């Protein structure tokens, strides 16, 4: 009996990453075979865009998985990184850093996102937990995070204006692979997104804090019983959320060069779509979902024009959740305990 169970478990572990890689390769191959270089190029840029969605989707899925909380401040954290970096750079605060100023600006932006995330934890989650016991049982964190989203966006709007601003990266190089042009910043971004998500996955799987987080995800009461100081571990989730959203914001800023107070909204909704598509609470689901949504977006622009993107993405989400309510890699209905 134990042999067959072992194999079944091993299969389950292998399945998700293998499917993700195979689907990706098949998409690229199909793109090249059917549509030639134009489509292949769209597939590549879809995957690169998808890597940004993926990072944000992982941030969403982490807070839902561990805290049962749809954190609406994630788009704000994403935006804060870009706007803080642009503000520092255009304000001339970083002249000492010379040519590396844009890098310093983005790093400070990521730190700002982490700090803002901790602020949100302090005033939504922790405060509510003190007042009402287990805050995860309430919709209040969700509503208050929506409040934080709107307040942060409008504060930035008042301070920096509503115009879309140009974030110039003095750095441009292209690679030509089999006739397809790939931007080096895009490639670096994709690699960074994958590295950040892989690091998170490692932390969750292999470290003491990761085991504690997965235990809280399943049952905060059990975690407390085993000696996990839940109140101290929860901020770690918010730090990771800030880090993931901040890195995604920095990558977006470098690749697309535009920042605005509402830059997070579009990416945030796409990331939620990606998370639902992949299966709520599943890291691999968020990765697959992010890539699928990125691909759907660029291919939709190619075939149906720029206005069709939202229809394609959300249509796809609806089809998937009708056919497979748990999402591509989800293991259970929406709720706690699926890290």
């Amino acid at each position, binding site marked *: 009996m*134990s042999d067959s169970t*072992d194999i079944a478990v091993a299969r389950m572990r292998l399945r998700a990453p293998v499917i993700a890689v195979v689907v990706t390769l098949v998409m690229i191959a199909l793109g090249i075979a059917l549509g030639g270089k134009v489509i292949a190029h769209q597939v590549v840029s879809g995957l690169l865009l998808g890597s940004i969605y993926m990072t944000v989707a992982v941030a969403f899925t982490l807070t839902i998985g561990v805290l049962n909380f749809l954190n609406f401040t994630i788009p704000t954290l994403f935006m804060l990184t870009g706007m803080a970096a642009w503000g520092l750079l255009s304000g001339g605060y970083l002249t000492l850093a010379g040519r590396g100023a844009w890098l310093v600006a983005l790093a400070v932006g990521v730190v700002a996102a982490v700090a803002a995330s901790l602020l949100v934890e302090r005033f939504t989650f922790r405060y509510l937990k003190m007042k009402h016991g287990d805050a995860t049982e309430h919709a209040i964190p969700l509503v208050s995070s929506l409040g934080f989203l709107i307040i942060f966006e409008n504060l930035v709007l008042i301070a920096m204006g509503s115009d879309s601003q140009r974030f110039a990266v003095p750095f441009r190089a292209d690679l030509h692979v089999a006739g397809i042009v790939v931007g080096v910043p895009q490639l670096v971004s994709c690699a960074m997104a994958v590295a950040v998500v892989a690091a998170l996955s490692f932390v969750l799987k292999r470290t003491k804090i990761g*085991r504690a987080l997965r*235990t809280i995800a399943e049952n905060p*009461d*059990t975690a407390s*019983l085993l*000696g*996990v100081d839940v109140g101290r571990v929860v901020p770690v989730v918010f730090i990771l959320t800030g880090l993931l959203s901040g890195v995604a914001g920095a990558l977006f800023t470098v690749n697309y060069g535009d920042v605005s107070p509402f830059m997070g909204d579009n990416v945030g909704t796409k990331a939620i779509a990606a998370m639902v598509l992949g299966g709520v609470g599943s890291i691999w689901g968020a990765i697959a979902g992010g890539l699928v949504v990125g691909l759907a977006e660029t291919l939709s622009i190619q075939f149906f024009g720029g206005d069709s993107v939202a229809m394609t993405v959300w249509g796809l989400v609806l089809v998937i959740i009708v056919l497979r309510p748990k999402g591509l890699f989800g293991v259970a209905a929406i709720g706690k*305990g699926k890290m």
Partner: protein
Amino acid sequence: MLLEVANLDVRYGRNHAVKGLNLSVAADELVTVLGSNGAGKTSLLRAIQGLTPCASGTIRFAGEDITRLSPPERLRRNLVLVPEGRQIVIGLTVHENLQMGAYCRADAAVQQDVDAIYDRFPNLAARRKMPASVLSGGEQQMLAIGRALLARPKLMMLDEPSLGLSPLLVERLFELIAGLRNEGLAILLVEQNTHMALEVASRGLVMELGGVVLEGAADLLRDDERLAAAYLGGH
């Protein structure tokens, strides 16, 4: 006394779950708390571990007042609860569950102690890399006890460990509990299985509606007809 509970009150809103309860457990003693559903037994254990706040009263453990300490702080003083329903973390592997048992420890002997648990429970060793969800009820109970042992308890509290186990497994479970008692571990055992519990315990308490209605040496309680009355809920 290792554990001394004095005038403990536990309330959930309007529900007065434990009323002015007194209880003590010596360092080498197995005390059992009996009573029907809703008598307040689980609330009592949860309050001792700190998972449920106590409204009034004091809890002293190893000579120290722990009434205001958090559950992790109590755990670090080697007061350990094996909860009702076992609360195995099914998303973690068997091995990871055991590692969680030693979450509060930072000493170098953890690995050695984990190996000792595998020696004690070969079934767990065979399934160490599997998710805990594949374990049978009996194996889950072994895992829950093994996990608790890794916190190096001075006092282990067990909340209805026999619940949902077959008669054969219940017998094995009580052999294990008696074995732990013989190794010198202090145990506070909450049970519905009155007969088995009084077999391994030296003293027993019977709870009803949050208070102690009967208390005494285990072999005397066994023959007390008031014990049966408490379970039937009548007088």
